[in-house]
């Protein structure tokens, strides 16, 4: 959350649509993300000129061209670092990073983790389609073990990254996940990302219709989604299943799925209650991904207040001015031992 705006213009979603025609493949999950962003942004109460979208390379990274805000489509993996410079140079801006599983976790993985530990007040939207789309179908750092792709004809032997777990490991102060098909949920997560003061890391499960269609099929199809998705809500027990008849229970630090059917010995009191401020719970939840015996969580895994980089940077500048006075160039040039030649 940056600032409250007194005389905010009333915007509509069309104010955020640029004149450029959108060039993603028909049916791509990116369309849904663009639509929800354009829908949510007018509601944030921020003057449009304060938004900046920074992206790297990949299908997702074309995003800034389609938003009628300030935008910078940069180079592979560096959006997070470029955004850091933008935010530190002008903390008044609302900075959004659009990246993908390749851009943000492979070639740009280093910048991503360092941004999160520094905790600049920017927003990361990581479109995770578990495949390389723009280079036409190689496995990505989030592709599952054994994945057959153009570059892994016998199956991938790379163990995948788990983005929320990585973010938590990097000490991110806000970690969340949503799915391209759950539009209302995505809107809520975009708002939460904006409201968080510090780096917000939002992973968006996004379907690539061409190279990895159906990667999240079980989580989006009506028949299976209730059993495969765990909707996280702060302070609420972790229930899932069509009739909320299943829950997550911790045995020590080991999670289990328990049944709350009438025949079961478990009750709602045995179900783990989500606490967004509990790093251990967030970490346990993050490891449900890639494990078919667990539902995959969506929602806010973790959200805490932590010192924000640019706040501290500006405070140091303020303090330096307070202690030394505002810098004077002639004084600086003449500092140290000097002498005069007549």
């Amino acid at each position: 959350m940056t600032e409250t705006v007194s005389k905010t213009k009333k915007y509509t979603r069309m104010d955020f649509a640029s004149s450029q025609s959108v060039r993603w493949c028909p049916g791509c999950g990116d369309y849904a993300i663009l639509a929800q962003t354009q829908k949510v942004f007018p509601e944030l109460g921020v003057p449009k000129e304060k938004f900046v979208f920074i992206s790297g390379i990949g299908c997702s990274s074309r995003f800034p061209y389609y938003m009628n805000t300030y935008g910078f489509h940069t180079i592979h993996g560096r959006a997070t670092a470029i955004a850091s410079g933008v935010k530190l140079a002008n903390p008044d801006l609302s900075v959004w990073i659009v990246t993908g599983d390749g851009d943000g976790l492979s070639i740009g993985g280093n910048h991503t983790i360092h941004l999160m530990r520094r905790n600049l007040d920017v927003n990361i939207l990581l479109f995770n389609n578990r495949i390389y789309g723009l280079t036409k179908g190689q496995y990505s750092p989030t592709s599952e073990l054994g994945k057959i792709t153009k570059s892994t004809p016998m199956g991938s032997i790379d163990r995948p990254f788990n983005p929320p777990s990585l973010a938590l490991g990097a000490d991110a102060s806000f970690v969340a996940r949503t799915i391209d098909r759950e539009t209302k949920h995505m809107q809520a997560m975009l708002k939460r990302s904006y409201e968080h003061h510090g780096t917000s890391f939002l992973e968006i499960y996004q379907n690539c219709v061409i190279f990895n269609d159906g990667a999240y099929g079980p989580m989006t199809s009506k028949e299976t989604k209730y059993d495969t998705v765990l909707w996280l809500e702060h302070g609420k027990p972790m229930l899932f299943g069509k009739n909320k008849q299943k829950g997550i229970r911790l045995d020590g630090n080991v999670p289990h799925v328990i049944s709350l059917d009438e025949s079961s010995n478990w009750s709602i009191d045995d179900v783990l209650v989500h606490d967004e401020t509990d790093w251990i719970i967030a970490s346990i939840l993050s490891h449900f991904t890639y494990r078919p015996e667990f539902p995959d969580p969506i929602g806010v895994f973790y959200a805490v207040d932590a010192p924000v980089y640019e706040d501290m940077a500006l405070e140091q500048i303020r303090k330096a001015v307070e202690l030394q006075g505002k810098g004077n160039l002639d004084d600086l040039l003449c500092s140290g031992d000097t002498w005069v030649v007549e």
Partner: protein
Amino acid sequence: MSNNATTLKRVEDVVIRFAGDSGDGMQLTGGRFTETTAIVGNDLSTLPDYPAEIRAPAGSLAGVSAFQIHFSSKDIHTPGDQPDVLVVMNPAALKVHLPDLIPGGTIIVNRNAFTDKNLKMAGYDSNPLDDGSLNEKYTVYDIEMGKLVINACKDLNLPPKTVERTKNMLALGFLFWMYDRPLDTTIKWLRIKFAKRPELIEANVRAVRTGYNYGETTETFTTRYTVAKAKLPAGKYRNINGNYALSLGLVAASEKANIPLFYGGYPITPASEVLHSLSAWKHFGIRTFQAEDEIAGVTSAIGAAFAGSLAVTATSGPGVALKTEALGLAVMAELPLVVINVQRGGPSTGLPTKTEQADLLQAMYGRNGEAPIPVLAAATPGDCFYVAYEAARVAIKYMTPVIVLTDGYLAHGSEPWVIPKAEDLPAIKVEHPNSIHEGDPGFMPYRRDPESLARPWAIPGVEGLEHRIGGLEKENITGNVNYDPDNHHFMIKIRAQKVANIVNEIPPTEVYGPESGKMLILSWGGTFGSNRAAVDRLRKEGIEVSHLHLRWINPLPKDLGEILIRFEKILIPEINLGQLSKIIRADYLVDAQGLNLVRGRPFRASDIMNAVKEKLG
């Protein structure tokens, strides 16, 4: 007061080299001698020469650290070819540096370090202080420095190791006596440095005084030297090294442009001091960002440039290699950015603490695609200030990244510097548009200034100018992504033309010496001093030779071609295998010859003199 037997001898210039173990504090000792020498009014030039290892094993040849100072009553340009005086704190330092000492030179030596163990580590079979090998050829001042400081500090109850560490101050005090220099600047400095450790102030002050008094009272030392003040141009002076001057130049540009300075960088030898200096000047509103790597250093700066800062990154060759892709983005996005390469020995990790000029072609051409970047190079430590300032001014005016080349010698070498006044520096005009160009349907990020060809620097936060830029090819004027073949060709040409137009910023070239003749020495960067010193000496010997030193290498000055053809021969001394030579030969079709010595150290003026004599037959 000096004892009666001592004579004071007036000399014109002196080269002293301090050499010792990495832990002996030689850089600091040299630095203090330099400050005092500057204040007494000599012209001077220094050359620190230290190993890449922080502390190689004590007493080893690899761990020897040295600092050379050349000071004079005349205007001088180099740290000197060979020392007249060699101060050695241990056998390894003697072993490494003795070959450079002039025949008949003076050795000042700490006898207490010449133990069997140290002698063995340095590869001596017998003690050179006792076997007569030195005394035949040199004047040796054989001083028990360790013992003297222990005696001087007896009553302070400090650990012997702590006291022993002050022996560098004893050596310094002795040199102050020998060259008739005051102690007060050093004592004042010690009081500030050890403000929280009064016992160390006392020990170090005693060591300096003991060294001085030792010269004064020991009858064997019969000669002291004095070097008169140099006749330097009038003005207020300070002593300055290249990295500090460069940092000041960046702050000056930010202040004069009235936009905040953003520095993104990753620590690297020999550029790190720029990060250190700027980080200490937060009261100027400077934002320094120690990034996770070189790439984030430059890309965070590119982000800051997009947001309206004067954006800077500094590094050395390996760092530039990592920043290369991002420099292409800055070319494409046409954002102002100052990129500083403090060159060191390469390739790869190379010689991190040594100087070299072998990154010129990297600066000129080291990017994918047609990605022209203006390149300019500093000539002296003090010139780093003006080059940094000029780079910032041009980057903003032309909306382009600019590469500044300095080197390890300039970075750490120092000289007296006339302090400029802020009001005398050229103006730097920054324009951020706040409205759409008349008649345009919306904001056009690539509508160029007809003269400079710079695009407008519209920054986020301004209502109505929302626009997108990026690394994909742009359509002229609109800045929209465009794959049209003719547009691409046009944009390639216009980006090249924009950089070529910077030629209009370059003043007419000055030739030092005759405007035409048998030979021109053409140089660039940190070899200025060696070349100028060589030319001066050659001309004194009656050999006609002129000197032209380039500040701008891309673009080259307009009048360079017509100057070159007025000389029968062109010699280009460079600390590389002929990189400027290649450019000059290609651009002007002249038979420029190179003098190429890549030893990790500045040219000796004598190297250049010999080459000239050879070429002239």
